[in-house]
Every structure is written in C-alpha cells, then in structure tokens.
C-alpha cells in the first residue's frame, strides 16, 4: 500500500481490457474461419497463416522502430485481428505475396504511420484490401469454387504449398466468379439480373457457404452467429450492423421492386459478398467508427448507401471496402457534430428551463 497516491477514484474496474475485446472478436470469427478453411483447403490455410504472421511481424517491426515495448503491445491482439480480417477478405487461393504485402500495407501505412493503436483514421484491413485490389486486380479477383478439405479433388498439403507459393506444376484451377461478380458480368452482357439469379444461384448455399468467394464472403450464417455473440458480450451494439444491413436491404428491395431486371433483391444483397463480415466485423471497428450511438447509425446508413451505389452502378462488383473507407473519412466530422444531450441542458448547451408547476 503506497502512502502517496497519485491517482483519483475509481479504484474498482470492470473485467474489461483491450486484449479481452480483441480476443472476443477473434473468437467470434473462428467458426466462419474454420468453415472456410475447410471449404477451400490447404492453400487457404497457408494464405491465412502467412497473412496473420506477416501482420504480427509488421507490427513488431513498427514498434521496434518507434521505440515502444514490443511484447506487451503485440499481446493486445489488435495486429492479430487486423491480419485475420485482411485474410478473410482475400481470395482463398491467392499467392503468398498478396498476404504479405497486404499485411504490411495495412499495419504500416494503415495503422502505424498514423501513430499506432487508436490513432488511425482508416480501417487498416480495408486500406490493405483496397490497395491490393487496385494494384493487383488479377490475383485479387481470381475466385475458385469450394473444394472441401478432405474431398476428392482437393489439393493435398504439398500441392497446397505449390498453389500458395507458386512453384511446381500448376493445379488445374477453374476460376469461378463470386455471386456478385457473376451477376455484374452477366448484366454487362445484357442478361437481366432476375434471370441470372433464378438459375444457378442457391440462396441457401450462399448462406451456408458452398459458393465461390473470398474467405469471409461465403459463410453468412456463421458470421451472423459470430456477430450476435459479439452483441451478447457487449463488444458491439446493434446500431452499426442494423443500419448497414438495413439500408442495404431496403435500398435493394426498393430498387428490385422498381426495376427487377437491373437490380438484385434485398436478401441477395444481405447474404452475398462481404455484407455480413462488413456489417458485424469491419464497419464496427472501434477505432474508426463514431463514438456516439446516433453517430453510429448515421455511419452505418452511409456505408449501406455507398455499398449499394457501388454495387449497382460502379465498376466493382463489391463495394463494402470502399464504402467503409469513405465513411471512415467522415467519422471525425460525425463525432464533432453529433453529440448526446447533456443532463440539465438543451441540445444547444443552454441550461433547460424547468416547466412551470402549479
């Protein structure tokens, strides 16, 4: 017991910590990750491991350069989570250098150049993904159909290494488009959306995950469960997921009603692409989202809106990453102007006038 106390109350604390928060998010991602690694086999596992290790290495390097303690800061789990989320958004059979370059861009440029944990303006995983997408469009859009881990045509461990590291005889890969990509390509060929969706597209398969896509795109159900787990443990609240998904669903449904040949329906928007991963795990990133509940609703609505616009009218089939980055840029503005009302004051800040009492 010290006789000179240098800090004021409170002297009790909730069992919360940054490490626990990050750990819970990672825990919520584990089921979807396991399923997808199982679906896409050894190459996916290799890529995942390389991306995560590269993220940790990048973080250690930056901390060492900045003269900050390496071990305690690595332990807080934030770099691990960034690498994990980046891996989830990559094509599962992408080469190893995509994972490494992406991790380094995300951690160094997206996080440490801004000042480290808590200082970054943009979501590091999305910075990495977008940088990769624009710089290396081909490897980043080469999706494969699922080849479950121990099934007949899945590559074995050595073949998996060959795929990831790009040596040895090439596996015969039939690239397949993700659902969103397929819809957009067919639309550009003149095939109406409702035709594309009516044959060759199984909603349940999309939900469960047996469709081509990135690691994180294809297991809507498990991601939803993970998101609900996070809400139950009070790591995130309903505001961002509901506003992102709600806006997408509403806009999709309205557009589909108005022009079914041109626009897919709301449920399709919800279940395909990175919607669920984005709504529960990426948009809810603590550092880059607004701090107030009302601000979070505005933020989520903006993400949903921009995602819908990009998916419907822009050149890319998937818009979530761009939408998140654009709304990240607006977060400081939202935080500046959207504030809770202070007790005893009006929303302008003047003391309230008590009502006349008889």
């Amino acid at each position: 017991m010290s006789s000179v106390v240098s800090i004021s109350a409170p002297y009790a604390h909730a069992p919360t910590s940054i490490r626990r928060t990050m750990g819970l998010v990672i825990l919520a991602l584990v089921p979807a990750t396991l399923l997808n690694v199982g679906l896409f086999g050894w190459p996916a596992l290799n890529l995942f491991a390389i991306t995560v290790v590269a993220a940790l290495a990048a973080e250690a390097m930056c901390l060492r350069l900045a003269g900050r303690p390496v071990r305690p800061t690595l332990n807080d789990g934030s770099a691990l989570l960034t690498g994990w989320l980046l891996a989830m958004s990559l094509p599962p059979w992408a080469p190893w250098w995509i994972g490494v370059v992406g991790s380094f861009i995300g951690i160094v440029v997206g996080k440490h150049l801004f000042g480290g944990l808590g200082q970054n303006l943009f979501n590091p995983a999305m910075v990495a993904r977008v940088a990769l997408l624009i710089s290396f469009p081909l490897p980043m859009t080469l999706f494969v159909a699922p080849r479950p881990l121990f099934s007949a045509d899945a590559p074995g461990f050595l073949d998996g290494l060959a795929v990831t590291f790009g040596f040895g005889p090439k596996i015969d890969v039939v690239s397949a488009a993700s659902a969103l990509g397929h819809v957009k390509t067919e639309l550009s060929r003149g095939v109406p959306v409702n035709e594309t969706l009516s044959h060759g597209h199984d909603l349940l398969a999309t939900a469960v995950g047996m469709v081509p896509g990135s690691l994180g795109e294809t297991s809507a159900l498990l991601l939803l469960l993970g998101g609900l787990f996070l809400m139950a443990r009070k790591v995130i609240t309903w505001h961002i997921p509901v506003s992102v998904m709600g806006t997408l669903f509403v806009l999709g449904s309205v557009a589909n009603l108005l022009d079914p040949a041109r626009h897919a329906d709301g449920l399709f928007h919800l279940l395909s692409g990175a919607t669920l991963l984005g709504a529960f795990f990426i948009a809810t990133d603590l550092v880059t989202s607004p701090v107030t509940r009302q601000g979070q609703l505005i933020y989520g609505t903006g993400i949903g809106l921009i995602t819908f616009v990009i998916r419907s009218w822009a050149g890319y089939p998937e818009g979530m990453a761009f939408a998140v980055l654009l709304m990240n840029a607006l977060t400081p503005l939202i935080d500046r102007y959207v504030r809770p009302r202070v007790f005893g004051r009006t929303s302008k800040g003047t003391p309230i006038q008590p009502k006349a009492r008889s």
Partner: protein
Amino acid sequence: MKMFRIRGGVHPEYRKELTSEQAIVEIPMPARLRIPLQQHIGAPAEAIVAVGDRVGKGQMIARPQGGLSAALHAPTSGVVVDIAALPAPHPSGLPQRTIVIEPDGRDQWAALPAPIAEPFAASSKAIADRVAECGIVGLGGATFPAAVKLDLRSSYTLDTLAINGAECEPYLTCDDRLMREQADEIIDGVRIMAHALGVGRVIIAIENNKPQALAAMTLAASGVSDIKVIGIPTRYPMGSERHLVQLLTGRETPARKLTADIGVVVHNVGTAAAVHQAVRFGRPLVARVVTVSGRGIATPRNVKVPLGVMVSDLLQFCGGLTDSTARLLSGGPMMGQPLPSTDVPVIKGTSGILALTQAETRRQPVQPCIRCGSCVSACPVGLVPVEMVALIRKENLDGAATAGVMDCISCGSCAYICPAHIPLVQYFNYAKGRLNALQRDERKRDLVKRLVEARAARMERMAHAKREALKRNKAADKPADTPQAGAASPS
C-alpha cells in the same frame, strides 16, 4: 409507481455480501479522539473550548462560522488535551485544526437541549434551528449542513421530499443495516423533515438489491399515508441526487441549479435518523455507522463509530489489514478518497473504510485509447469523455469547458468501464481544479480592475472639485480686489 429512465451508468460488482448480514456493532471507546474542525461543506467551525476543559458527551465544542457551516460536539465525556494542526483524512495528508479529547471512560451525556415535544406542531424554523444546533450534516457522504437544506422552503417552492436509501456504491452497507435495524427511527425523522419542509409527498427510494431493507422500511411506513417506499433498479450511480430525482419524478434538474429549483429536496436515510435523535432526544450528531470492508480486512463489519476514532483503531477492531491490501480508501471504491495513512480520524462523511486487494481493484497499465465509445455509453450526464480527455491532454482547458467538463459529477462510470484503463476521472478533476483556479484569478483581477477604476474616478472627482473651488474663490476675491487694485495701481 411510475419510474422514468436515466441514461448511462454501470453495473459494478457490488460485493455487499461481505458485510450485508453483519449487524451494526459498537467499537469500545479508544484512548484518544480527534475531531477536525472541518467535517462539512462550508466554513470550518470555530472552537469554543480550550485545552484543559472538561466536556460532557454531546457538549458543543465548536460553533458554526457563517451561514454555511456546522457545529461540532464531544463524542464522549472527557478532557480536551490539545487543539492543534494534525493530519486530516484527506488524500493530501495536510494538517487541519483539530480538537483532541481524552475520554474519561464514563461516557456521560452533558446537559442536552430539551426534546421537542410536539415536532409536528413546531415551526420549521424551530426544527431547522434544532438540526443546526445538533451539527447534523448530510450523512450520505456530501456532508452538506442539513439545517440549510431544511430551510429551503423559504426560497423555493417545494412539493416532494426524496429519501436516498439507494447506497449505490459497492461494498458499503451502512445505510442498508440502518434501514433494517432502525426503520422506525428513520421514518420518524423523515416525517419531521417533511413537516419542516412543508411538502405533501415523500418517496423513500431503496435499490432492489436490498430486499430486507425494503421490507423493513415498508413495514415501518405502513401507518403513514404520505410516505411511499419503493424499490429502484440497481445501477450505479442511482444514488446521484439529480438522477434519483429524474428517476422518481421525471423532472430534470437544470444545469448549475439545485433539485430544489424543481421542487424536490433529497436527504439520506442516515441524516433522517440523526434528525430523529436531535428532535426527540436533543442528542447531537456524535457517532455514525461505518462499513469496514474489502478482502484486505480480516473481519469486515458494520461499526457504529464515535466521531474522532482513529482509523488505525477501527481497523484493529476489525481484525487488521492483511498483507494483500493494495488500496486503503475512505468511502466507496467509485468515488472514495485514498487515505494517506491510518493515523487519521473518522469524520461525519466517512461512510466506509475499504481495504482492497489488487484482484479487487483490477488495476492494469494504461494503454492507448481505442475510441470504443464505452465511456460515452456509460456517462450518466451525457458527456463525451474521450473527447474531453483528448482536449485536457493538450492543456486546452477552454475547449474542455466547452465540451462540458464542469458538468461532470466525477462518478467514475467512464473510468470503470474503459478497456484501456485510462484514469479518466483524474483528467477531469485536474481540469475542474484548474478551471476553478483560473476563474478565481479572473474574478480577483476583475475586482482589482474595478477598484482601480473607482479610485481613479474618485481622484478625478476630488481634483475636479478642487479646481471648481479654486475658480469660485478667485471669482469671489475679484470684486473685492478691483477697487483696491484700482486704488493701488498708479493711475
């Protein structure tokens, strides 16, 4: 009864089971009692005894100074052995003028004021005067002179008396035990206070985690028509005066104003019990119930402690501190004050003495803020702690004031929940202290400026008056001068 929503707040681990089933016990009188002259909000009391005086139990030893002050009384019969500057139970450990009494072991009451026979026929001034005479202050921890609060009917229109039985701080169970064991006395005190305030409605609010206290108080109030005993949700800081009033009545106290401005006065249950003693028996406030708790104490207990007993004696009575004590506090863990040593006395505001282990405080190294917004959700006042801390870090105190730091009630909810373990309240207390000091300096400067200007104006007036007088004299002299001048001058 309809209850309204309040925002924010946290659910700490209450750990009340350490002492909630321990009946109140009395501590044997120690060898020395130290009574500091400042145990209340307002001006310190003025000693009216001298070294060597014999005093009886309950005899006034210090009288109030000014309108906002409180009297002090001898907790037992004995001799005044010293009046000196001794360490006060304050984190700074700075000395404070203190009266030291050596008990004579007889514990004899001095001549007390006569009991008020018919309190409900007495005027509110008579009751307020009796409460002032008996040195009663708010025993919830704020120690505001109760007589001033009872006198509010003269300046405000009041309709409700709210009795605070919430006891929302973790570990503390003194109010809980008091309500279970002395419910009738509390209800009597409440009725007297309601009569003094002239209110038609009384609500006694008790948190739902105290079912036996609720039952005891409901039974004691069952015969009285205007008193309602209700259970309120268990949440910290439900005991905060403004939030309690909003919960019970839906009325929001305007910023910088009192709850009396919206017609409600709030008193603690312990204060009500003290009012009962003062009015029915003429006994002043000389003892209070203190919860001694925490895993760092060998035998946690609720103790009725005469004022002035040293914390070291109290801890010894409760088995002493264990080796694992990491923090020693006066009050609760959320808003309490750290004790610089155990060589300090128990005063009117000491609701608890806590010895907490590291496992209970969960103190961890500070990490960078991750902008999670938990502090914003937890703040019961609707402030944005993350923004205020960023401004205070850069010494932008005006920005912090605009962000609302002066409205902060220092409840500690934000710091409790922060995953990065940032000591948020420390920043806010620093900012509030600096802003208050800057305001004081500015008022001083304004005053000096006004005085200088007034003096300059006065000097100018005096000089002007002198010139006028000189002019008048010259004019008066001239007609007398002229003939002489004419005569004197050579023509």
